[in-house]
């Protein structure tokens, strides 16, 4: 023991093994030593914008990157996640056509659960237009095939109409209430009381304040007593259903069907989505289109003022 003590003392006084003093080390950050003054901020900025700066490319890319919300506002611009169903030339051409259509018709941001009013050209009507109002229960399709389904209860009859977003006979798409629901599809409204799908045709549009996030309606829909169009008790992914009491025999089989491991399946999630790099490439075109449209509208506004 005595030998250990002497050896420790030797280590402490030795100059070949410096002892790390954290306090002294970090003090130098705040108070630079003589000859090591702080670099002025204008030098740093000059270096940042300098073409010789290696990190400059990344910052430029970030400056022109589309907002992350674009994947939710324009979901039809994203291609099919299955690589076997992809055709990049067709996708590029479709995106071009979609943006050209969006120059003519304002296709608004909406989600499943939003209430929309759609005006369609109809040659058999004296006014040549017919309007349908309903709650969006489903949104599907990629590119020009993008579609959405509206549901309403009219005169005691449930009606659903599927519309193609880029159909040229669509004259106006108006969002009467912008909101989301707990699920990505609301097919269970078919087995719910009619009041949950009834929307009056003369409903006034509700606007949200600028910059507000899209509200989520946390409503849980009670279902009619079975039989149903689908076995809703099997769909554990649907959060917006208030399941009634079901016979024990029906619930007994659920334990054999349920897949609790699916939510942890990372590869499934990977296969379902498009990579962020590819999304940025796609939405760059949308950003360019938007800036062009804004410029054009600004020029038109100036012309109207003069």
């Amino acid at each position, binding site marked *: 023991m005595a030998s250990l003590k002497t050896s420790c003392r030797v280590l402490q006084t030795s100059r070949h093994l410096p002892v790390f003093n954290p306090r002294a080390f970090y003090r130098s950050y705040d108070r630079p030593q003589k000859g090591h003054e702080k670099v002025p901020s204008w030098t740093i900025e000059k270096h940042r914008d300098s073409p010789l700066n290696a990190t400059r490319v990344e910052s430029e890319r970030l400056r022109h990157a589309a907002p992350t919300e674009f994947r939710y506002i324009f979901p039809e611009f994203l291609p099919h996640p299955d690589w076997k169903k992809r055709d990049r030339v067709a996708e590029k051409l479709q995106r071009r056509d979609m943006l050209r259509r969006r120059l003519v018709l304002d296709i608004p941001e909406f989600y499943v659960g939003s209430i929309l009013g759609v005006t369609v050209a109809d040659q058999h009507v004296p006014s040549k237009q017919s309007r349908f109002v309903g709650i969006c229960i489903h949104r599907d399709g990629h590119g020009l095939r993008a579609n959405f389904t509206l549901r309403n209860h009219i005169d005691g*009859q449930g009606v659903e109409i599927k*519309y*193609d977003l880029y159909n040229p006979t669509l004259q106006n798409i108006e969002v009467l209430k912008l909101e989301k629901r707990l699920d990505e599809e609301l097919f269970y409204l078919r087995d719910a009381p009619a009041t949950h799908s009834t929307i009056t045709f003369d409903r006034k549009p509700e606007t949200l304040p600028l910059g507000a996030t899209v509200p989520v309606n946390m409503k849980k829909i009670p279902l009619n007593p079975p039989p149903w169009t689908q076995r809703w008790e099997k769909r554990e992914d649907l959060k917006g259903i208030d399941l009634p009491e079901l016979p024990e025999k029906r619930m007994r089989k659920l334990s054999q069907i349920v897949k609790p491991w699916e939510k942890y399946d990372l590869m499934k999630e990977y296969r379902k989505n498009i990579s962020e790099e590819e999304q940025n490439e796609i939405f760059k075109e949308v950003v360019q289109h938007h800036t062009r449209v804004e410029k054009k509208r600004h020029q038109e506004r100036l012309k109207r003022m003069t």
Partner: protein
Amino acid sequence: MSAAARYFHSRAVTLGLCTRNNTRHFSTSLPLCELRHMSRVNVVDNSDLGKNAKTSGKPARIVHVYNKQGVAGIGDKVLLALEKQKVKGIIVGCKQKQKPMVPKFDSNNVVLIDEEDTPMGSRINVPIPSVLRKKEELAKILAISSRFV
């Protein structure tokens, strides 16, 4: 079930494995909701025959479809059996999945007509698809409709 079989069955249930060893399996398609022979339909005009069919508990059934496919869609003429009679009708609404822009209804609706294609009722209170306006032979039915969708 023997004790061993009971044990293995309970283990299978705990592990979430298939426990149906002695049953036959067959594949089924998604419900197509097609209107064919013997399909039950809902009469939507205010005719007496239609009202009696609803209240009697024996709904109108399609007995013949007047087209080559055997599947009735919106605007097709069908022969119905209701109240022990054979009556013709026009399909005015389908539960079947439709093309874009064509409405899909929650029930299969039919309007009763006679041999001269005149509707038997005087009013239809249910919305009628606007695509039927293309067909000139349905003009009398469209005249008694209250609402188009």
